[in-house]
């Protein structure tokens, strides 16, 4: 009985945990509830992944209303894959949060912090699980609003302005998305994504469809921090509490990529109206610019957290580059990088959280001599950095492999050179850390020798281990990505 209800329970459990936490009010109890909820939703995500692998697609009618009318939760290969990433990161960050949040969020607001974290998790899971376009907007807003609060709960006063700017940009993005959905609803008469995809080819009047596609793309690119629309990301990631930054870096932008994939391939892919609209070329150009400029900017950042934020913008450029290639290898590369970059960046931000806890902040003058003061943390950051560069044996290499393969199969050599060339810029900014941590004596701002607490190290190293594991045995991440890519391209 329960197996049939999993898609709903996946979202309901964290959604229900939030008000219960608000009623619980005490931080310790709130954290325990958050932990239980995030771990159970991770278990549900894994169960769903297995169900989808067996059955292909899991469909769930909310409130027993049949799909075209009622809201349908539709989880296919791509959705299940992203769900495991989001729920997995939620489960890893939850135990990390107790010590890290206690140090960075004022005591009386801790239970609100956990409630917002639950809402954010529920929102992100909802976006991926739902098969209804407007329901996706509602979850998008739930996730975004709780994200703004999570960012604003940081101790540093600049987190307030960062949250405000993210609120403005995020709301504009979501509203663009809802305008696009409105136009699509006007033209097709349905909000169910699968049904919309079926009805689109029949629509003769294509001008509103192209307008809707433009609105949706711009809106989602804003949430995705695609190059020209990424200005909210560096401040938001830098001034948010470390646990929040790690969770957002690994999930928020990835879920927006999922939405972009869903719209580009499942809905717009099916109809000929978009054959002549140069979406792919535009996305290709923007991703190329994103990769190069964001990486270059990252090299000159004084604060490592801000450097990794710019690096995130660049790595998202890789994902959109893979999407823009629109061939099997490129798409697999995009989806697998969505996963690999999630765990890599999550690990790096979690480790930086440990540094921020002991040294107050994560700027480069604090990192001098870190190799001796916090050996485990800095070695973890090095491995995470190697995965960012794409050194073989780490997860990053697998996605670089597929992106270069995709570029070569398209016969565009400049694209392959761009992908590998830009990882050299990644070498530059990762080696800034290595030289600071291992080749410089400890400065005045460096932390006193002493490792981060175990509660922070274990989740971080779990992710670092995952970086290496998914770099070597890729049956899960490449297998999942390949089936998802095949599914999306099949729809075209």
């Amino acid at each position: 009985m329960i197996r049939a209800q999993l898609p709903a329970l996946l979202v309901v459990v964290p959604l229900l945990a939030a008000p219960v936490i608000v009623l619980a009010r005490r931080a310790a109890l709130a954290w325990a509830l958050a932990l239980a909820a995030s771990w159970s939703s991770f278990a549900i995500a894994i169960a769903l992944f297995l169900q989808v692998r067996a059955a292909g697609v899991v469909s769930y009618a909310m409130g027993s209303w049949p799909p075209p009318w009622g809201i349908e939760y539709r989880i296919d290969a791509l959705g299940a894959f992203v769900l495991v990433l989001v729920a997995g990161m939620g489960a890893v960050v939850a135990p990390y949060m107790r010590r890290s949040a206690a140090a960075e969020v004022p005591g009386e607001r801790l239970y609100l912090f956990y409630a917002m974290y639950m809402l954010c998790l529920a929102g992100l899971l909802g976006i991926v699980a739902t098969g209804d376009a407007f329901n996706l907007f509602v979850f998008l807003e739930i996730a975004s609003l709780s994200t703004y609060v999570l960012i604003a709960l940081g101790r540093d006063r600049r987190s307030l302005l960062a949250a405000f700017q993210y609120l403005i940009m995020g709301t504009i993005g979501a509203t663009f998305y809802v305008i696009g959905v409105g136009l699509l609803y006007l033209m097709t008469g349905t909000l169910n994504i699968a049904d919309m995809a079926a009805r689109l080819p029949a629509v003769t009047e294509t001008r509103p469809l192209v307008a809707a596609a433009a609105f949706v793309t711009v809106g989602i690119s804003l949430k995705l921090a695609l190059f020209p629309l990424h200005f909210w990301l560096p401040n938001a990631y830098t001034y948010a509490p470390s646990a929040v930054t790690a969770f957002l870096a690994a999930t928020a932008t990835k879920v927006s990529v999922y939405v972009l994939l869903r719209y580009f391939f499942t809905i717009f892919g099916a109809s000929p109206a978009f054959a002549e609209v140069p979406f792919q070329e535009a996305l290709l150009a923007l991703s190329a610019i994103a990769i190069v400029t964001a990486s270059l900017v990252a090299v000159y950042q004084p604060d490592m957290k801000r450097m990794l934020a710019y690096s995130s913008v660049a790595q998202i450029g890789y994902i959109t580059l893979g999407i823009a290639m629109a061939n099997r290898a490129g798409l697999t590369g995009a989806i697998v990088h969505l996963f690999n970059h999630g765990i890599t960046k999550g690990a790096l931000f979690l480790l930086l959280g440990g540094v921020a806890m002991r040294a107050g902040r994560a700027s480069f003058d604090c990192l001098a001599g870190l190799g001796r003061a916090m050996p485990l943390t800095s070695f973890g950051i090095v491995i995470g950095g190697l995965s960012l560069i794409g050194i073989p044996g780490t997860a990053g290499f697998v996605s670089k492999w597929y992106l270069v393969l995709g570029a070569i199969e398209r016969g565009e050599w400049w694209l392959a050179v761009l992908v590998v060339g830009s990882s050299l810029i990644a070498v530059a900014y990762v080696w800034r850390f290595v030289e600071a941590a291992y080749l410089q004596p400890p400065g005045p701002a460096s932390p006193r020798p002493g490792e981060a607490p175990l509660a922070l190290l274990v989740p971080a190293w779990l992710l670092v281990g995952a970086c290496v594991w998914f770099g070597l045995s890729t049956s899960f991440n490449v297998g999942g990505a390949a089936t998802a890519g095949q599914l999306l391209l099949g729809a075209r």
Partner: protein
Amino acid sequence: MSAGAVGGHYAYWVTVFLMVAGLYIVVARGNLVKKLIGLSIFQTSVYLLYIGPGKLIGGTAPIVAEGFRVYSNPLPHVLILTAIVVGVATLALGLALVVRIREAYGTIEEDEILDRDREPRGGE
């Protein structure tokens, strides 16, 4: 664009106007509260975009009653109810942030806030 078309598309012209006006205010104004007002105007344009086409000329309220066969479409209304709640929540959160920014920085003009950030106040 024939006159009829302009007249017929009256609702769309208003929507576009509100949309662009809202965006302009958000972009042009430095005062944080004015930005939020612009954002609300921008969101209001969406409500009109949904509700306008939903209304059928001669259609009554979408509640089944004898003697009425033509009903306007209830779905946009439901969607916009949710969108309004989302708009309220965003506005409330934005205003709460503005209040806290005012306490932390003493001003709600964006460029003054950025200047106050640049001088080292040691506000870590």
